[in-house]
């Protein structure tokens, strides 16, 4: 069959004409969509308060209240869905416009006076464009509504669960809560950010290093060079003392033996508790000071070893060579410790890397692929270091890297003969082996001969240098201000700066409240008693204001506690003011009459009987009234109906601490403070005396007790 040729098919000419409803729809929708898209894409300027809001986008202020996708709510949540769909709107509208333009410019009236029609190739393109745009419109609209439906109605009901964590009721039982709940005493407060800072959200800096044994403050520059001064017993972790090993001359022969005889001779570290001595592992020191440096050079058994630096120097020394040759290779082969082996190996590899022409073996054929070739090694290194190591090197073919062949190149033969260890184990038994904690406490000993077959006997444990302790200052991670700084001296436990949250946010004390007549409720009057399930119980929460301003407290608690067993919680007075924490003496010295009156006023109103000490009349709880008020404290009542802990069939058993009744409570504190002049972040204040409003809001959890099972 011949392929279809491209003859002009003229006879039944196909053409396309938009229908009237389509044109009407486009006429209405295109300007609307342009308006909408303009609003969405130019947020926040088009939002209420923005520069472009008036006059074009004024109606959106109202619409944004209804459809949160358009309002501030989702804008603050940084929801990008609406903006994304507006972008698609834009594409879609452009396609519609293209369709209309094609039709308008290429179309010819099919019949005189009739509507224009486009035909042929252009007509096909126009139709395809229009159809595609229509499909996009449909799919986008469906997506928009389905996403709106799928999202739970937001923010209209207080119990709504928002995908964002900030809007959700804090769940004290959630596993992550363990990491965000701290007792008030553990919390710090940043005065500049006006935020609570927990131990997890501060940055720490080390002020001093010190030895916990001798309280010597180690300068940070000497940390590595000098090492620790004090050592712990490897057996019992007791402190070790430096004592002279040498037997002193007979004290009977000297008049004043202790003061007169200068300590001399070898020294050892001894434990006064378990009588361990470093002579047991054959370590004796020449000097009683700088033990750390001496210990680094000593092997178990008392052999000295050369540090890598000394060995290098010795190698350079020409007088040493014939000596070494005379000794033979044997001497060096057995004396490879970790540090020397590493140094030798490093030297070998570096030599080969530096010398690209060292292709000396038959493995060169594998060179390009070989993982052991210097080029691939350097390539890998450049991947990790991110440097341009590879680029600088000429891409010459280099043979595979040679491995160490001799001891002075770092070859260490594995010592597979364990008969000595077995014999020792048989001799000493299990008591002779070191425990895991003893081994874990052992410092890394780079002077160890080799790792393989290293025995784990008590008789090989070395003294443990004391782990140095630090004092740390804490900074706010946001503004970098110091919020806690200890005194640099080791002996003092004081702090120079310590901004504890307890002196900025109100403390909450919980006390069970018993109503004597008990008509409506009776509760756990005894602190610590178990809570009766399904029985309304009242608790008195006393908020104490630590700051010198009157604060306004707003509480929010979920009506039901989260978790499997939901207890009902009612905060009777969620909104109240606490007077400033004024000077106690000021308060006391106020003239008596006024004070009495004031006190009278402060007492709970609407109660019968005297407002003073007798609490017996408080058998009537009022919603919206505080219970009692003092100089800088306010008590309110919380009614709790503990859940019954009956586990239904099919549910798991009662988990640990599931009977604990904990109320998550959102506390919002508002107060007016003098505008801090030292605030760097705020704009220059226009008015010096201006008082700015501050607020602090946080979740806290109140533990009320256990529910009876």
């Amino acid at each position, binding site marked *: 069959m011949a392929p279809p040729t491209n003859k002009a098919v003229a006879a039944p000419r196909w053409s396309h004409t938009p229908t009237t409803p389509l044109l009407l729809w486009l006429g209405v929708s295109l300007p609307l969509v342009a308006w909408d898209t303009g609003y969405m894409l130019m947020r926040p300027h088009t939002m209420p308060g923005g520069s472009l809001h008036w006059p074009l986008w004024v109606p959106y202020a109202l619409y944004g209240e209804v459809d949160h996708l358009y309002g501030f709510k989702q804008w603050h949540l940084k929801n990008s869905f609406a903006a994304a769909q507006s972008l698609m709107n834009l594409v879609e509208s452009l396609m519609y416009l293209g369709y209309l333009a094609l039709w308008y410019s290429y179309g010819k009236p099919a019949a005189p006076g009739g509507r224009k029609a486009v035909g042929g190739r252009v007509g096909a393109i126009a139709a395809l464009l229009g159809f595609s745009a229509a499909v996009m419109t449909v799919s986008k609209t469906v997506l928009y509504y389905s996403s709106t439906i799928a999202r739970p109605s937001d923010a209209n009901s207080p119990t709504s669960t928002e995908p964002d964590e900030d809007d959700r009721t804090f769940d004290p039982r959630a596993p992550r809560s363990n990491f965000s709940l701290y007792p008030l005493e553990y919390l710090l407060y940043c005065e500049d950010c006006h935020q609570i800072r927990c131990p997890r959200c501060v940055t720490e800096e080390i002020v001093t290093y010190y030895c916990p044994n001798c309280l010597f403050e180690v300068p940070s520059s000497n940390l590595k060079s000098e090492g620790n001064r004090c050592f712990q017993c490897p*057996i*019992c972790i007791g402190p070790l003392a430096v004592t002279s090993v040498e*037997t*002193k001359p*007979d*004290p009977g022969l000297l008049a004043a033996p202790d003061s007169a005889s200068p300590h001399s001779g070898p020294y050892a570290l*001894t434990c006064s*508790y*378990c*009588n*361990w*001595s470093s*002579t*047991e592992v054959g370590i004796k020191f020449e000097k009683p000071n700088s033990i750390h440096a001496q210990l680094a050079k000593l092997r178990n058994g008392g052999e000295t070893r050369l540090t890598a630096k000394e060995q290098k120097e010795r190698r350079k020394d020409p007088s040493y060579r014939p000596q070494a040759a005379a000794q033979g290779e044997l001497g060096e082969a057995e004396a490879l410790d970790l540090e020397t082996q590493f140094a030798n190996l490093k030297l070998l590899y570096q030599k080969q890397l530096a010398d690209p022409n060292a292709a000396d073996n038959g493995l060169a054929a594998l060179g390009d692929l070989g993982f052991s070739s210097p080029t691939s090694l350097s390539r890998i290194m450049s991947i990790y270091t991110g440097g341009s190591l590879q680029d600088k090197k000429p891409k010459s073919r280099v043979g595979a890297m040679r491995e160490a062949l001799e001891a002075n190149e770092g070859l260490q033969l594995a010592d597979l003969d364990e008969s000595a260890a077995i014999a020792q184990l048989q001799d000493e038994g299990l*008591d002779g082996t070191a425990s895991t904690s003893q081994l874990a406490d052992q410092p890394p000993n780079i002077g160890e001969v080799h790792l393989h077959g290293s025995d784990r006997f*008590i008789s090989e444990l070395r003294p443990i240098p004391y782990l140095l302790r630090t004092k740390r200052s804490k900074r706010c991670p946001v503004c970098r201000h110091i919020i806690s700084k200890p005194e640099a001296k080791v002996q003092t436990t004081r702090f120079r700066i310590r901004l504890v949250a307890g002196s900025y946010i109100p403390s909450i004390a919980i006390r069970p409240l018993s109503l004597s007549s008990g008509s409506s409720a009776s509760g756990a009057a005894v602190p610590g008693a178990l809570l009766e399930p399904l029985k309304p119980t009242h608790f008195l929460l006393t908020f104490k204001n630590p700051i010198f301003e009157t604060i306004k407290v707003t509480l929010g608690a979920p009506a039901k506690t989260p978790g499997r067993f939901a207890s009902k919680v009612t905060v009777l007075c969620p909104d109240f003011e606490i007077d400033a924490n004024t000077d106690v003496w000021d308060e006391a010295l106020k003239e008596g009459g006024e004070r009495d009156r004031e006190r009278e006023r402060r007492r709970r109103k609407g109660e019968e009987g005297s407002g003073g000490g007798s609490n017996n009349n408080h058998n009537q709880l009022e919603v919206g009234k505080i219970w009692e008020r003092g100089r800088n404290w306010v008590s309110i009542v919380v009614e709790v109906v503990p859940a019954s802990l009956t586990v239904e069939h099919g549910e798991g058993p009662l988990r640990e601490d599931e009977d604990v009744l904990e109320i998550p409570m959102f506390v919002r504190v508002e107060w007016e403070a003098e505008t801090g002049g030292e605030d760097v972040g705020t704009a220059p204040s226009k008015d010096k005396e201006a008082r700015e409003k501050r607020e602090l809001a946080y979740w806290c959890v109140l533990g009320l007790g256990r529910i009876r099972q």
Partner: protein
Amino acid sequence: MSSKRHSILPPVSSGPKPPVHFSSSITIADSAVLTGTHPIAIHSESVVHPRARLDSLAGRLTVGRRCVVHERATLGAIGTSGRITEAAVTLGDYVVVEVGAAIEAGETVIGEGTVVGVGARVGAGAVIGKHCTLTPHTEIAAGEVVPDFTVVFSNGMRRTDKRGVAELKNKGLARQIDVLRRMIPSNPAKFA
């Protein structure tokens, strides 16, 4: 009326006065408590601190040469067994029984140069070897045999003392006794 505090210990005169065999060079404080019916022997240059308690009710007590029995230490306490034996407690030479330690009666032997730490307890019939160290609050079960040069520490862990300082320790103890002699007024005549 009386601002003086009274000791909760029974008066010294309570109980029978045991027969004693003291060396002439010992130091024994006036307020040490020696009770029991069996003989108590203290050899030369030993020191008994005030309020140390030597009880020979369950058998003979022997304290070797140059021993130190500290305050409130008890030798010959009648333990759970409560049986009466020939030799209740035998301390070798150079034994130190520190403050509050208790050595139960019943053929208990403490070897030469051993230190019984503060508050330690040695059960009846235990035999402690020479030059051992019982660290504070160690408990040795009744009838146990502890080999020479053993260090008992941290809740019953044992190790062998390899310092080889037994001689030095003995010398040190001799000097300590020299000092104690001057510090503690001795009154052996009271117990005779």
